[in-house]
């Protein structure tokens, strides 16, 4: 395939066209235009698959990339060059993201045609989905940070619209606004990072940034308050990630985002959009390193992973459990970035997208079939479920696969990626040569979170699908699941890809327990940290020309079990990974076992733990008081009070006294002068009465507002003037 913007653009344009068609004439089309969106995303998927094929099976080189730009805005004049380019940057990571995004999105589109059926705004939902897919694909294809930002915000808008999809509910409004505003805090920081980078690089193209990083342009630059520019920019970009990927301390929006329809939760708030933050941090990984931010990132990731997992323990809403598990898993990815586990973090992004999309769709399938005839709403509360595996076997099958994957059970994808992150964290924090004492906490939190993940996911499964139905009426009304194209097939397809064998030839992903051999370690081989020194000689490629890189020969990458490290170091790494693999298998099975004891055997009483840790339980119920802190304290008490004071000051004080006060000042001056006159006259002239009377008459006459008096004064003044000047 000849890679020019024109040949790649259809990926973006198909969903965009679907969006435009649906936005304008969707309501008039048959089936409200859902097929337009689905066809659009399927075409896009086909195109992505072709690129994936080219990159993964064709070149098979880790540093191959395609970079094309065109000028979007050109303001150059005279000695002042300024232009903003847009374009495409495709490397292996982009290719995989494209395939993942379009694939997951296509399946979710299909599932939506089942889930949203009968909704009064069925067509509009697909319109939003198409726009969202456009945004995500655009973000993945972007060659610079500014266009990443553009699509990033566009997805923020879609997220806002979809969370507020049921706008009759007051809470939907709150949740959508909360989501948009919280992520916007990160966005604003991201924008600042763009500005900072622009001031040094003169562009925000990835390749330009790598180029300047390689040549050391960031060294010695100071942003504000003496902070080095590289750290500033890295922190600000990571702040964007914190906002978008719901990391501590901006994680509050994601659970509320479950107000939206379940398919959109699956697509946006689990599989793709939230991963955009991680994707961005991965792209900017060299900057993070240059800014010495990795330890900080690891801490944020570990805290998020652990904290969210603890909150998930006590959730009773099936979607809320999944929401917190999403935050927790995103925390793992961020932890992976922090500990330098670039490849594994990205792999976890992909695997997580697949199994989390599947989990959400399964949850959607469950929720959709549980219809409460009293409130005419769907039921999401797990205490009212139970024993559903007989009613919906296919959903159960898909969800079980995903639960095993997310719990980190061997042979499933979650194990491959999460285990490698944990192994790297272990090496980075505890067993490695460069490990400092303060680096020990993230891996410990990571393992603890892995245990909790296994526990709460299995708790969810057991509460939902096993045991006796707790709400008989609900259970009776639930129809037996039949295999249908738009309900179960997407779930089962996604479930198939939760198997680890698709991503790695070995059990742990480290080539340790080889199942299929090095040949299938394509993922580890193809994804590598951006090597900035490759970009040292980089010059911009103009629009539309043939790929000059096609003539350059790239070495076909081979799997290197020691990852370019020396033998001794590689041994250390492998030891750490072996320990890590063992530990994570252990904690996973421990979690599953405890859940089994608590909810199937009922030999352990969950109430006991609740009572023992009742204070913690309360904190968990309040989500660690973050909502309280942000909304009640920071916004209501501080920000709004300040705003009200300012507004009152503006209109009530400044405007009233300083501006309108001018008039009063005039009036007072006049009065003072008048008083002064009277006072002087009263005291200095003997004829007090006469003078007062005269003054009264005079001032009354002067102030009469009568035309004739003015006329007289005019006459007298003119006369006086004439007498004075001419004689």
């Amino acid at each position: 395939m000849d890679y020019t913007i024109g040949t790649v653009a259809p990926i973006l344009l198909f969903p965009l066209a679907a969006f435009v068609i649906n936005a304008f004439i969707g309501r008039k089309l048959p089936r409200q235009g859902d097929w337009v969106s689905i066809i659009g995303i399927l075409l896009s998927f086909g195109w992505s698959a072709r690129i994936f094929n080219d990159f993964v099976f064709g070149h098979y080189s880790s540093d191959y990339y395609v970079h094309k730009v065109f000028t979007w805005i050109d303001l150059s004049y005279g000695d002042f060059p300024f232009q903003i380019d847009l374009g495409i940057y495709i490397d292996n990571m982009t290719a995989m993201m494209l395939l993942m995004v379009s694939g997951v999105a296509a399946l979710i589109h299909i599932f939506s045609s089942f889930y949203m059926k009968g909704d009064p705004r069925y067509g509009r939902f697909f319109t939003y989905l198409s726009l969202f897919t456009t945004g995500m694909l655009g973000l993945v294809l972007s060659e610079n940070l500014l266009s990443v930002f553009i699509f990033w915000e566009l997805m923020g808008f879609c997220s806002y619209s979809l969370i507020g999809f049921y706008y009759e509910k007051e809470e939907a409004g709150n949740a959508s606004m909360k989501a948009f505003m919280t992520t916007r805090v990160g966005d604003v920081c991201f924008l600042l990072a763009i500005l900072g980078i622009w001031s040094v690089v003169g562009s925000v193209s990835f390749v330009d940034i790598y180029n300047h990083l390689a040549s050391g342009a960031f060294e010695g630059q100071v942003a504000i308050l003496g902070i080095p520019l590289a750290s500033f920019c890295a922190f600000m970009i990571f702040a964007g990630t914190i906002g978008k990927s719901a990391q501590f301390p901006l994680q509050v929006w994601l659970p509320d985002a479950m107000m939206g329809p379940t398919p959109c939760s699956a697509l946006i708030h689990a599989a793709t959009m939230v991963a955009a933050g991680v994707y961005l941090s991965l792209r900017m990984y060299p900057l993070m390193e240059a800014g010495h931010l990795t330890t900080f990132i690891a801490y944020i990731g570990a805290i998020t992973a652990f904290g969210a997992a603890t909150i998930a323990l006590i959730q009773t809403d099936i979607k809320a459990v999944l929401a917190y598990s999403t935050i927790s898993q995103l925390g793992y990815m961020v932890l992976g970035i922090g500990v330098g586990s670039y490849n594994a973090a990205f792999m976890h992004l992909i695997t997580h997208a697949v199994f989390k999309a599947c989990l959400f769709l399964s949850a959607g399938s469950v929720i959709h079939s549980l219809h409460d005839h009293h409130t005419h709403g769907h039921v999401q509360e797990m205490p009212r479920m139970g024993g559903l595996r007989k009613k919906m076997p296919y959903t159960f099958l898909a969800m079980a696969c995903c639960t095993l994957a997310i719990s980190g059970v061997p042979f499933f994808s979650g194990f491959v990626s999460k285990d490698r992150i944990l192994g790297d964290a272990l090496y980075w924090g505890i067993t490695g040569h460069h490990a400092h004492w303060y680096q020990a906490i993230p891996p410990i939190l990571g393992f603890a979170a892995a245990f909790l993940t296994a526990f709460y996911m299995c708790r969810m499964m057991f509460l939902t699908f096993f045991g006796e139905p707790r709400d008989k009426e609900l259970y009776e009304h639930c129809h037996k699941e039949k295999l249908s194209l738009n309900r179960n097939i997407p779930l089962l397809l996604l479930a198939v890809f939760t198997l680890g064998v698709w991503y790695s030839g070995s059990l742990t992903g480290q080539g340790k327990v080889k199942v299929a051999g090095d040949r299938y370690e394509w993922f580890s081989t193809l994804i590598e940290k951006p090597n900035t020194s490759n970009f040292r000689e980089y010059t911009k490629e103009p629009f539309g020309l043939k790929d000059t890189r096609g003539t350059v020969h790239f070495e076909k990458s081979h799997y290197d079990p020691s990852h370019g490290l020396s033998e001794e170091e590689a041994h250390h790494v492998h030891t750490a990974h072996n320990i890590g693999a063992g530990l994570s298998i252990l904690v996973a099975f421990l979690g599953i076992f405890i859940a089994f004891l608590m909810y199937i055997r009922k030999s352990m009483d969950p109430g006991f733990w609740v009572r023992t840790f009742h204070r913690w339980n309360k904190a968990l119920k309040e989500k660690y008081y973050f909502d309280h802190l942000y909304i009640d304290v920071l916004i209501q008490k501080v920000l709004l009070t300040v705003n009200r004071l300012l507004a009152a000051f503006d209109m009530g004080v400044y405007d009233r006294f300083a501006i309108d006060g001018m008039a009063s000042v005039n009036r007072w001056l006049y009065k003072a002068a008048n008083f002064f006159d009277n006072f002087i006259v009263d005291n200095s002239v003997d004829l007090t009465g006469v003078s007062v009377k005269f003054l009264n008459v005079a001032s009354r006459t002067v102030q009469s507002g009568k035309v004739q008096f003015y006329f007289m004064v005019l006459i007298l003044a003119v006369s006086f003037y004439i007498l004075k000047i001419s004689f």
Partner: protein
Amino acid sequence: MFHKVLIILSSALTVASAIGVLVTKDIVRACIFLFFSLFGVAGIYASLGADFVAVTQIMVYVGGVVILMLFAVMLTGGPGKESAGSKGYLLIPMMGNKITFGFGIFSGLVLLLTMAKITKSVIASVTISEVEGFASTVERIGSLLVSEHVLAFEISSILLLGALVGAAMIARPRKNV
């Protein structure tokens, strides 16, 4: 002789009636005095040899404006209603009070003084000569109006038209006041 009598008579009529306008209590009488004053002015024009102007003065002013004013007085409630300020022995005219009257006289006198001073210097500076005899000016004024002053003439016609329409518009009775 006739000339001198004319001058004296019309001057006396003009000034006396003007004073009458000033001092009379009744607005209808003020209009009548105005009538006489303007008539006197016409006489002055005649004595100056401006026959055409004199005739116009009588026709337009005396015949038109004063009658118009009388109508206005009648349409606005007639005489006597506004003479509340005219009590006591002092001859204070209606619709004013002592103060305004005093100020009026005062400023009038000041102005007169000013003008006298101006006039003195003006008369001293111009060469005065008198045209002998009397010739009718009508024909010459007519030709002047259509040649040299034609623009002003036309504009005045538009002005009159505008005033006519405007006056009619303004005075038109309306219900929604």
